[in-house]
C-alpha cells in the first residue's frame, strides 16, 4: 500500500509525524508542571489556570487557530517576541502547526497526568523524606516513577490528537505543501478536488493505522508499567 503513496503524500505523512512528535515532546515538561500545580498547588488563580488549560477542548478549533494567528502571527505580540528573541517564527511554518497541535492536545495530556498525580499515595513521599530525600529527590525517585503510566498515557493521547489536528492548524498556518500541509489537511485538499477520492481514502487508511498504532502502543506500555508497579 505504501508503495502507491505519492511523494506529496509521503511528505505530508512525514510532516505530520514530525509536527506531532515535536508538539508532544515540547509540551510534555510543561504538561507535567501544570499537572503538578493543578493536583497539588494551593495558589490564587488555580481554577483560572485549570479553565485556561481546558478551554481549547471546548472552543471551536477555528477560534483557537484564529486566536493563535492574532497572538503568535507575524505581527502578534507573542509572535514578534519569539521571532526577535528566540528566532522562532510560527506564522505559516511547520513550527506553527506544532504549536497549534500542542495547544489542542494539552488538555488531554494534563488531565491524564493530573489524575495520576492525584492517585499517588503521599505517604510514600513522606517515607522517602524520612529516609533523607529532599523534595527534588522525592519527586524524581518516587513520584515520577509512580506517575509514569499517566505521563505515557497523556503523551500518547496528545500525540494522537496532534496527528488528527485540523481546524486550528489550517486557520493558523494554512495548508502549504511541504511546510504546513499535514495528513488531515491533505486529506481535506483531496476531498475538495475532482478525482481525489482514491488518494483521500488511501490517506485515511494511513491515518487510521497511525492512530490505532499509537493507542495500542500506549495501552501496551501502560500495562507493562503497571505490571511492574503492582505485581511481582
Amino acid at each position: 500500500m505504501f508503495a502507491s503513496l505519492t511523494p506529496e503524500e509521503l511528505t505530508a505523512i512525514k510532516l505530520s509525524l514530525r509536527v506531532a512528535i515535536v508538539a508532544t515532546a515540547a509540551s510534555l515538561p510543561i504538561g507535567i508542571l501544570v499537572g503538578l500545580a493543578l493536583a497539588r498547588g494551593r495558589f490564587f488563580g488555580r481554577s483560572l489556570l485549570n479553565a485556561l488549560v481546558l478551554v481549547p477542548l471546548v472552543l471551536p478549533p477555528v477560534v483557537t487557530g484564529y486566536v493563535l494567528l492574532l497572538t503568535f502571527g507575524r505581527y502578534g505580540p507573542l509572535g514578534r517576541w519569539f521571532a526577535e528573541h528566540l528566532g522562532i517564527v510560527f506564522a505559516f511554518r511547520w513550527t506553527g502547526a506544532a504549536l497549534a497541535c500542542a495547544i489542542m492536545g494539552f488538555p488531554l495530556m494534563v488531565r491524564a497526568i493530573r489524575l495520576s498525580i492525584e492517585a499517588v499515595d503521599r505517604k510514600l513521599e513522606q517515607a522517602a523524606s524520612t529516609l533523607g530525600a529532599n523534595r527534588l529527590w522525592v519527586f524524581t525517585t518516587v513520584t515520577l516513577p509512580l506517575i509514569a503510566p499517566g505521563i505515557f498515557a497523556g503523551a500518547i493521547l496528545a500525540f494522537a490528537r496532534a496527528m488528527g489536528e485540523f481546524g486550528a492548524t489550517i486557520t493558523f498556518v494554512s495548508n502549504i505543501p511541504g511546510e504546513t500541509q499535514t495528513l488531515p489537511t491533505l486529506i481535506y485538499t483531496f476531498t475538495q478536488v475532482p478525482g481525489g477520492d482514491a488518494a483521500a481514502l488511501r490517506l485515511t487508511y494511513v491515518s487510521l493505522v497511525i492512530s490505532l498504532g499509537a493507542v495500542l502502543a500506549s495501552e501496551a506500555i501502560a500495562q507493562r508499567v503497571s505490571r511492574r508497579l503492582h505485581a511481582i
Partner: protein
Amino acid sequence: MSIEVFAETTLGDFRLETSFKSDSRLTAIFGPSGSGKTSILNIIAGLLRPERGRVVVDGTVLLDTAAQIFLPTHCRRIGYVFQESRLFPHLSVKGNLLYGRFFTPRPRRYARVDEVVDLLDLGPLLERGTNALSGGERQRVAIGRALLASPRLLLMDEPLSSLDDRRKQEVMPFLERLRDQARVPIVYVSHVSSEIERLSETVVLMSEGKTVAAGRTSEMKWNPR
C-alpha cells in the same frame, strides 16, 4: 543516647500536650487509639509542625519553636517504621533497603548492609518485589530500610498491629535483637501492654492527647487501659 520531647499543639478539635525525656535504648509510648501517640512520632520526624515544641536527640536540636529552629524531615536522620510499612512499590526489596543509604554520606553510614540483612533475615527476600511479601516480611523490610539510612533515632509506629498473632511472634524476636544489637535508640508506639512490658525500658503514658506519666517500665505502676 538521649531524647527530649516537648510539644503543644491543636490538631482539629484535639489538643496534644506532651513532655518527656528518656535515655533508654527503647522508649515506649503507650496509650489507647487516638491518644496522640502517632502525632508525637510525626513531630519528632518533622512530618508535623507543632505550635510550640522542642525536640532534642543526642544533643542535636531538631525542633525548637522558641528559637525558630525547624529542621526539615530529610535533614533529621530519623528512621521511621510506619504502621503500614509504606514500601516503595516500584522498587524491589533490595531497592527499598538501599534507598535511604543513597542519601547518607559515607562517614555517617554506621549500618552495614550484610549486618542488617542478617539481623532481620532478609537474605531470601532481596530480589523479590514488594507485593510478593507477607505482612511480617513487609515490616521486616521496612525496619531494614529505616536502619540502612543510619538514623540517629528509630521511630516505630505499632509495627506489629497489622499482623496476626503468628506473624507477631515471628517479628517480635527481631525487635528484641534490634534493641540489643543495633546502635540506635528506639521510640516505640503501641497500645498493647504485653509488647511494651517485653520490649521497653522507659514508658510514656498517653491519654486523650496528654502525657499522664513517664518513667522506667519496671518501676511504673501503670494500669493498661
